[in-house]
């Protein structure tokens, strides 16, 4: 651990389990190894967020855009998951951990800085090409509800970033250089 402080990263579920990805989006067998290596090297403990898409629609789900996931029922599902996550984060904060969140940029659910968009999708699946929906700046539905849960308890949303594995232009090497800078940053003052 570089500076002796306690650190924990809450990572999007699929960063530790590519089996949860929607079909064709898994880019490695199981764990995204370059990320886990960096977390360990920088002294971060690893906590895994649940995947709301997986628990809502299963592993054989269709590709969906953010617009399709943005329903009251799915948001309610995300809020229920968020309560348990924030309960756990609160314990880490109580033990003086620096908490960060690493999402999955480009995802309709787990994007932090980048999410998906395709307002025209719906009905009979057809015409989807490799890469799926388009991308736009902003959070996915799951990250939005997780942030809302923090704020509803008067807690700040932790420092967060995303790995753009769901972007059509994803570059692992460039993404990990950016991750190194994020992980090395000092803890934000309370």
């Amino acid at each position, binding site marked *: 651990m570089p500076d002796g402080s*306690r650190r924990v990263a809450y990572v999007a579920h699929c960063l*530790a*389990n*590519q*089996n*949860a*990805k929607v*079909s*064709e*989006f*898994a*880019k*490695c*067998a*199981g*764990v995204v*190894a370059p990320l*886990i290596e960096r977390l360990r090297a920088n002294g971060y*403990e*690893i*906590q*895994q967020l*649940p*995947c709301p898409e*997986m*628990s809502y629609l*299963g*592993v*054989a789900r269709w590709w969906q855009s953010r617009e399709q996931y943005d329903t009251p029922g799915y948001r309610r599902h995300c809020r*229920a*998951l968020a*309560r*348990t996550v924030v*309960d*756990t984060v609160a*314990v880490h904060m109580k*033990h003086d951990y620096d908490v960060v969140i690493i999402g999955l940029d480009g995802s309709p659910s787990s994007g932090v800085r980048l999410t998906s968009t395709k307002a025209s999708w719906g009905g009979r699946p057809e015409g989807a090409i490799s890469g799926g929906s388009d991308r736009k700046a902003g959070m996915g539905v799951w990250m939005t509800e997780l942030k809302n849960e923090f704020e509803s308890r008067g807690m700040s949303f932790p420092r967060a970033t995303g790995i753009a594995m769901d972007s059509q232009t994803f570059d692992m090497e460039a993404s990990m250089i950016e991750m190194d800078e994020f992980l090395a940053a000092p803890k934000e003052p309370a």
Partner: protein
Amino acid sequence: MIRDDARSRRVVIVADYLVNPGSALYAGVAGRAGPVLDVLVEDGWGLMKPPPHILGEPVGRPAVTTIAGDAVDYQRHDYAVVILAVEGLPQGGVWLDLLEVAFRELGAPMPTVVRLRLDGSEGADTAAGVRAALAAATPREAAPQA
């Protein structure tokens, strides 16, 4: 249509202690976790990791219920699912009691439980030992290729 990608179709429900053995939350736990996380990463296992077992049932129950639901869906689609617990930790460090309840309520069989010992016996402190324990619990067609 479901098309192939890089996924392994192998998932392990793993105790937090085996992923974060150096955590300050485990200051009172004796023993060594061995190279478990290294093996899981190198061999392409996907992780489903519940919160630390010391956090108590109000946190554990909803998390484990979600994980069990995911696991049942994986099994339905012929993914291999194994539970990796720690011998000597309460409920294997992975909420085994709550997992049993969750799988029973879902009408699904509990995946095979592999219990690793922290005292170094039975080879659990070596990569070969961890691999052997996992292989014994994994269907041959789903096992990592040497």
